[in-house]
């Protein structure tokens, strides 16, 4: 592993994931239905540099969680490639993949489901240590587990307890300790705080930032909450119906969103400072992903849509400040909302 030349830790090239959601064969024949393919992710590309946090945001069904699971190897991509530290995961042998697994871990959304209820906390945190043979003697394992528990703000005494004895926030700390135990460089966080209360969410977000600074971690952060995303990320990617519509620096994307969907999402954020004022209500809902609109998937809800949007799918094009936008209107400079932040 002497390939640490590039600054790019993860590169995702045109990945797609299709799920076959058809009814069983017999039903299809009787009801004369076609096979139904759900394109959960349809051609997504991005890179993550070492030490940064890339967030993917979007509404339910936009495929952001599927991207997280593809990156972690929980799903096999239908096409495209995932390159982790210059190694293409698809070409890597079983041993090499097992080696790579040590270096990336995942934190899940539901702190109540992500810990095995029948295991003691110490055993849960030690699992990666034992699987990857990082520590083998019981004394060594115990010492490491104690240290991890302290790092995430719990007590070494908690190792003897069962998950149900902890609150949601404390469980998420246990999840983080488990994810950190194999000394990974890269963490995929799938909505890690959306099941938590705000005060606990603040604790976890602060902890994640502290750990990132301390260990130089790289995060892929999945969330539907724009405020959380704006707080934690370096760069943000906005997804809509399985595709990335805009990627840019956090500051830029919130100060000066380009894609109409990003603008719409942003105006929908509840703002505490605007007490009593109305949000800009957003028209329409996310279409059924089984039958996505032709052309740009956003066109039925887009105030700037015109003929070309209905037929031709826009690709991500580089925008002046290093960001990328997939929108015909922006490309043709028909919408110009370049306002100083």
């Amino acid at each position, binding site marked *: 592993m002497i390939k640490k030349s590039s600054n790019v830790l993860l590169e995702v090239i045109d990945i797609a994931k299709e799920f076959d959601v058809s009814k069983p064969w017999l039903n299809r024949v009787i009801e004369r239905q076609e096979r139904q393919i759900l394109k959960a992710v349809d051609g997504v590309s991005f890179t993550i540099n070492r030490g940064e946090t890339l967030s993917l945001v979007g*509404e*339910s069904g936009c495929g952001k969680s599927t991207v997280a699971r593809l990156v972690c190897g929980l799903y096999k991509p239908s096409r495209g490639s995932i390159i982790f530290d210059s190694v293409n995961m698809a070409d890597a042998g079983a041993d090499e993949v097992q080696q790579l697994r040590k270096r990336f871990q995942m934190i899940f959304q539901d702190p109540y489901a992500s810990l095995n209820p029948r295991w003691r906390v110490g055993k849960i945190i030690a699992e990666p240590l034992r699987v990857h043979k990082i520590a083998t003697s019981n004394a060594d394992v115990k010492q490491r587990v104690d240290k991890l528990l302290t790092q995430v703000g719990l007590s070494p005494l908690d190792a003897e307890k069962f998950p149900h004895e902890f*609150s*949601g*926030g*404390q469980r998420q700390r246990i999840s983080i300790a488990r994810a950190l135990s194999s000394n990974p460089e890269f963490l995929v966080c799938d909505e890690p705080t959306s099941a938590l*209360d*705000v*005060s*606990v*969410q*603040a*604790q976890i*977000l*602060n902890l994640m*930032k502290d750990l990132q600074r301390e260990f130089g971690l790289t995060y892929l952060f999945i969330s*539907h909450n*724009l*405020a*959380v995303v*704006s*707080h934690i990320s370096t760069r943000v990617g906005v997804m809509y119906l399985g595709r990335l519509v805009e990627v840019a620096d956090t500051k830029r994307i*919130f*100060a000066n969103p380009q894609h109409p969907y990003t603008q*719409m*999402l*942003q105006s*929908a*954020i*509840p*703002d*505490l*400072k*605007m*007490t*009593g*004022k*109305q*949000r*800009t*209500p*957003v028209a329409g*809902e*996310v279409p*059924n992903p089984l039958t996505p609109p032709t052309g740009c998937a956003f066109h039925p809800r887009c105030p700037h849509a015109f003929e070309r949007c209905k037929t031709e799918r826009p690709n991500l094009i580089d925008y002046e400040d290093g960001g990328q936008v997939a929108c015909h209107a922006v490309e043709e400079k028909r919408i110009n909302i370049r306002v100083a932040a």
Partner: protein
Amino acid sequence: MSSTPAVPLLQVKNLRIEFPTRRGNLTAVDDISFDIAAGEVLGVVGESGAGKSLTGAAVIGLLEPPGRIANGEILLAGRRIDNLPFEELRKIRGREIGAIFQDPLTSLNPLYTIGRQIIETIETHLDLTHAQARARAIELLNEVGIPAADRRIDHYPHQFSGGMRQRVVISLALAANPKLIIADEPTTALDVSIQAQIITLIKKLCREHGTAVMLVTHDMGVIAETADRVAVMYAGRIAEIGPVAEVIHSPQHPYTIGLMGAIPSVGDAHERLAQIDGSMPRLSAIPKGCAFNPRCTRVNDVPNHRCTTERPELLPAGKTKAACWLHVSAAAQTDKQAVTA
């Protein structure tokens, strides 16, 4: 407020909800009192386990056994409703108090068309012929913004999207023109863009119908945009109650202050969020005195260990009411000065 001598629409007095368990009674809601005036939106906010949903359930008489009202009174338009026999209560439910729950899918019976469900509710409570009821149902669906209501009325719940389903639920809650609506996390299961639509809708309808709303949610953003007044609950008690702008912008109780600081917002440049250490106590281990005292940073600012020994009452603090000894001692001091002067 003193200019309205009339009885408030809903009065909750010293409500106490207990869960008998084998380890003694757990007090989930502990001696809370509040009023809602006609046409007013009261937000009830708190973290999970604060007792906010139980309070809502108690008002509408849907407290799940073994939970029970151990003490206190609930009065609707001056009439006591917490001790009514089941049949009487059933008449009030739907007719005088409507309910909107979190999950629009489970609030509707999947086997009946939405029209049948709305018409049934109307016919149960209002003296209308079937044709009149149907006309009213279509009118309601139009009002909540369901396109082609005269056709959609004969559709089943699964034929609607999440946002549309929540609209149907709202029309169901409004069917008999109730005076009060209990909305328990009405937007939590929805995407941000849909949330904004639903909030706008609830607000508009309540204003037009003069309906009072008790809006139970954990989302301060929703409260900020919808509520007139807000009650902040912690560990089964009201920590602070007051006009929404005051509570958000100049909170008085240390818990509310911490809660407001913990909410990330877009564009705030802080590296770390303010966090409240620790977690909400379990019902079986609520601390003596002020329930918040183990997490409070200002315990030592109150003399005589009052915070750990004596429970504070809700008393005026700034422009809100807070249950905190900090403000009580301040008030007492001013009282003393008044006496000496």
